[in-house]
């Protein structure tokens, strides 16, 4: 093989190798290997036919988080981590310039959205929805902040969260 042909073969082989690698990685999904996008908390998130109180509580808290996050203009995931501990809440407040009062209002709005979502999903009787809404609307701000501080009750204990309304909720389960 003469020198000119060797030069052409070398350059040609380099082009083929480079294109083959890039093509193979593109075909294997290289252009879309990124974290999954989280959903906009302001968009409605349908409930998935919860059957037990625990599942309702789960969906309820997710809806509440969505509603509060939408009101605050942050992601549901960021808010969930912020509510996990008092220290995390403080850092969150500093970072986003959100005071406790604004946070409490947002959480209350989130809880109301959760009631509406529960009604829409048929997980909560409309007979209960009204009084429950009234209960939540009347929750004083300091009580809302207390609920945020004690995030365990927010996420884990609907009865604890809603007081007498929670007892009713259990009775009116579909």
């Amino acid at each position, binding site marked *: 093989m003469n*020198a*000119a042909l*060797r*030069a*052409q073969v*070398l*350059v040609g*082989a*380099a*082009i083929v*190798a*480079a*294109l083959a*690698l*890039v093509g193979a*990685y*593109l075909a*294997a*999904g*290289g*252009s879309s*290997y*990124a*974290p*999954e*996008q*989280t*959903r906009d908390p302001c968009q409605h998130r349908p409930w998935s036919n919860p059957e037990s109180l*625990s*599942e309702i*509580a*789960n969906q309820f*808290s*997710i809806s509440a*988080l969505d509603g509060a996050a939408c009101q605050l203009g942050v*992601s*549901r*995931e*960021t808010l*969930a*981590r*912020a*509510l*996990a*501990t008092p220290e*995390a809440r403080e*850092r969150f407040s500093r970072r986003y310039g959100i005071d406790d009062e604004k946070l409490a209002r947002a959480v209350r709005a989130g809880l109301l959205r959760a009631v509406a979502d529960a009604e829409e999903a048929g997980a909560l009787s409309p007979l209960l929805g009204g009084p429950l809404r009234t209960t939540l609307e009347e929750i004083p701000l300091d009580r809302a902040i207390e609920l945020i501080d004690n*995030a*365990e009750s927010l*996420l*884990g204990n609907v009865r604890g969260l809603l007081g007498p309304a929670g007892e009713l909720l259990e009775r009116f389960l579909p």
Partner: protein
Amino acid sequence: MSEGAPRPRVAALALAVGLVLADSSIVVLALPDIYRDLGTSVAGVTWVLISFNLVMALAAVPAALVARRVGPGRSAAVGLAVFAGAGLACGLADDLSTLILARCVQAIGGAAAVTAALELLPATVGSERRAATVWAAAGAIGAALGPAVGGVLTELVSWQSIFLIQVPVALVAAVPILAVARHEAATAVLEAEVRPSGRPHLAANVALAMVSAAIAAALFLLVLLLIEGWRLTPIGAAIVVTAMPLAALLGSRIGPLVPSARARSAAGAILVSGGLGGLALLPRAEVALTLPPQLLVGVGLSLVLSALTETALGGRAPQAIHGGWTISARHAGVVVGLLALTPIFTADIAQQRDDAIDAGTAVVLDSKVNPLIKLDLAARIQDRLEEEKGKVPTIGPAFEPLPENSSERAEVEGLRDELQEQLNRGATHAFSPSFGLAAILGLLALVPIGLSRRIGL
């Protein structure tokens, strides 16, 4: 090597060149340890690399002029002594400013040693062409081996050992060179035979700068991806990036089969760009998937660096001055590459980390795990984020201890794996734009390579 060429001298000169040029990349794998140890940032610690390369770029040609004036043997020996002394200072530095200052001094000594070595090599090996080949090969192998050696030393000893071990190595290289200095009269005879200094080979040096920027990105970004993104240990990362120098050895076998330096340059630049393109499009966070791109980059860098260096030096004298220009071009390229790409990936990695954490938290929230466990996990994930502020966290500890109940345990393990997958995706994706830009830089080097014959540079 010519008959009777003093092998220890050639070895010493090649060792000096390899050692100095390895130093431009040897700290890459140690950077994460350095910035943790010295309490600085990714952007700040990048200056440990940038400062060395910047000073090398600025000092190479003046150092070559000094070597011509005071004698290359003396210049090389003094250069190596300064390099060793500054290496000692680097190893003893306990703050970033001292380390960066010592790196600058190290680069001045290195520039003197490398350019003088090129002036000494023709007398030692018997021909300019052979000298250029030895010099370019030593530099390419040194640059490619640097990160792996640095990684092993960082893991087995400490980041300081990278610099401290250079002291005896530089002194060992200096001993035969001192003997060469005593024979500078013989070197002067050869100098008298070479043509007077001409202008630097513009196209080859511009191409060298662009390719060096791309290669620096390949080494620097890949190491950061492995250590900071995928959480490999320095020695683990060193083993992985050893693929590149091994491939460079393969490239050095291919090179002599093709006489055309232009074809080797073009093929090398295409391979480097293709490899970087592959790294920009990694389809999963798997170490094995970095091997084919590294193979291309390694073969490519061996072909392109040696071919462009030979082109830049070919038929031009004095060799030290033109060698100085190639050193200057290479290190200027590294500086430009690091300065241009560091802010991009630093911003990307912060954004991708947040996106990944959000995606992982979404998986936790949407799971059927007991809400109390969810809350606990959210708190522990947040704690991990705070503990490893600004970095991609190791998320496993947030899920420990696992629940005792077997079904809950399986669910939590699934969540942990999913969150880790999201973090891997984020870390990998964060580097994609930088690798992509580096690939474009490598491809752009084809312009001066292609133009070199047409415009007769």
